């Protein structure tokens, strides 16, 4: 059986998802309006800015930073034969253009992909429209970008 269909592998993915979802609720990143209050730097002079999101991402990066260092001392992860380290290295137009478009979309709604999915738990109005649009956008991106992993690699390696 393929490594990624064995029980410990799937259980790891599931427990990771549980922790991630719990973290999104506890940090309240599931509240798009709170995320927007972080992104609203125009409120800094008036004292209305909510810097909470910075605490979320810095704490998450700190923990992951240690895990990456631990991983570098190992040949392989526990339940697979290799670390799937991203192979792209160049700063290219799709990276920057994609980040610009994502930034506009994020600033319009305060929803990034993690909270988008976990919000299914709380089902606000219009969430289905958002999810279908996000999925359609992702699919369109896969068609537009140099299709196929090899071409993408040639561009960004």
């Amino acid at each position, binding site marked *: 059986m393929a490594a990624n269909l064995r029980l410990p592998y799937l259980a790891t993915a599931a427990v990771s998802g549980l922790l991630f979802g719990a973290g999104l609720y506890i940090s309240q990143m599931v509240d798009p309006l709170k995320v927007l209050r972080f992104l609203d730097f125009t409120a800094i002079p008036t004292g209305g800015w909510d810097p909470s999101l910075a605490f979320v991402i810095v704490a998450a990066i700190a923990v992951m930073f240690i895990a990456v260092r631990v991983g570098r001392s190992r040949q392989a992860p526990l339940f697979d034969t290799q670390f799937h380290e991203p192979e792209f290295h160049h700063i290219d137009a799709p990276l920057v253009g994609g980040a610009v478009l994502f930034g506009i979309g994020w600033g319009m709604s305060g929803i990034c992909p*993690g909270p988008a999915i976990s919000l299914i738990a709380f089902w606000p109005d219009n969430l289905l429209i958002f999810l279908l649009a996000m999925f359609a956008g992702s699919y369109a991106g896969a068609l537009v970008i140099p299709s196929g992993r090899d071409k993408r690699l040639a561009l960004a390696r």
Partner: protein
Amino acid sequence: MDAFSPIPALIGGVLIGLASALLWLGNGRIAGISGIFGQLLPPARTVVWRLAFLLALVLGALAAAWLIPGLGVGGPGGAPAQLASPPPGWNIPAPLWIAISGLLIGFGTKIGNGCTSGHGVCGIARLSKRSFVAVGVFFSVAILTVAVTGIV
């Protein structure tokens, strides 16, 4: 300061970090949500773990909201979750505004290879040059978008 909540933010951030650490050290995979759902369609053999992760992501948020109610939005003790309304005076229907936002996020994270989790948490922790650029760009553009639209 409006509803500044550093302690839950730190705890939530640590949990997100642990989730990413577990997926990396256990399965050697980047916990990037746009990447995980963006590869559900092609005939990928990896679809099973991706679905398990995404289902658990929803259940994790739901379970936490029942175990620790009243932190803000969601669950039995929380306010109902709400999506943002279009900026006042723009005269755009809310569903259209939300759909455009979703399209841009799906498209942008696909061609840019990542979002707040994949680039923002995992990429920065790996000291990836691409992720530093992506994070600088999407945070700046999002802040600019909020300032220009006056949506808050």
